[in-house]
């Protein structure tokens, strides 16, 4: 069975490993994402379709 001192030493060693990693961190990978292009609202799209265009008129009831 390990002695109390041995356990303490182990804990300290573990802490030191964690501490060294925190004090000498590797650089994280870069995260890159660019703005997307969205055509202006209500700009002509695909020849005929309009964004935010009024709904197609429906025949009135009745």
């Amino acid at each position: 069975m390990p002695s109390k001192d041995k356990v303490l030493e182990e804990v300290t060693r573990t802490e030191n490993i964690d501490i060294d990693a925190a004090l000498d961190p590797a650089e994280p990978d870069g995260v890159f994402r660019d703005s997307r292009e969205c055509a202006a609202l209500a700009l002509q799209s695909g020849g005929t379709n309009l964004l935010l265009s009024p709904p197609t008129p429906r025949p009135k009831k009745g």
Partner: protein
Amino acid sequence: MEQSSTSALLQGTVLDLASDVVSALRSGDHVRAGSTLTGGGAGEGVARAAVRVLGADTLLPSVLLRIPPDPGQLAVFKDAVAAHPPRDEAAPTVVWSHWAMTRALRRAEQPLTTPPADEPDAEPDARWLDGAGWQFLTHQLAVLAPLALPGEECAVTRVARSRPVDVARGFVRAVRRRDWQQAAGAGRWLTLLDGVPDTLGLEAGLDFVRLMGGSDPRVALQLEAARLMPAGVLL
């Protein structure tokens, strides 16, 4: 104890501690900086380790706001310095962060004791930064952001002062990479350097880093330090 859970506990305590420092820097109330350490939430060993990781910045409120540190907090800080000396083959940032703590401790204690009889702590060398590329330089400086203090004079600050454009480039790179911690640390250094190109737009840049990454207390801490830096007078 499993290493991963030690690590998670340590990391959480570092974040709590950083939050305390941010609150203190924002409110000017240094006592609040001690709540994680004096509140009994974390075990003694973990608290000590967390102070070692946050480093000299644990005492930043007393340095920048020019108020004496809380005695209980100072005692934990002193324990952390003694309990976690750098190992023989430790990386330069580990050695330097420990040196920064011993210097902060001496400055904090000086008013309380008679002038120290012993000679100042031997300063480590900064040879590992000789000829360093601007990317590596900025990363290392950001890790050693606790050394970025008004009036601080050491080998690392001399290197930083000689390369303002490179640190500014590193800031741009860090923002592009969305590495907010590095960006905030580099930004803190830049507030101290002469010769930073005006076109960098540092003030707007720091606001941007706060907007994007300020929810991380370690990022917020650097930004608060940068905010107080121009007004701060050391010693």
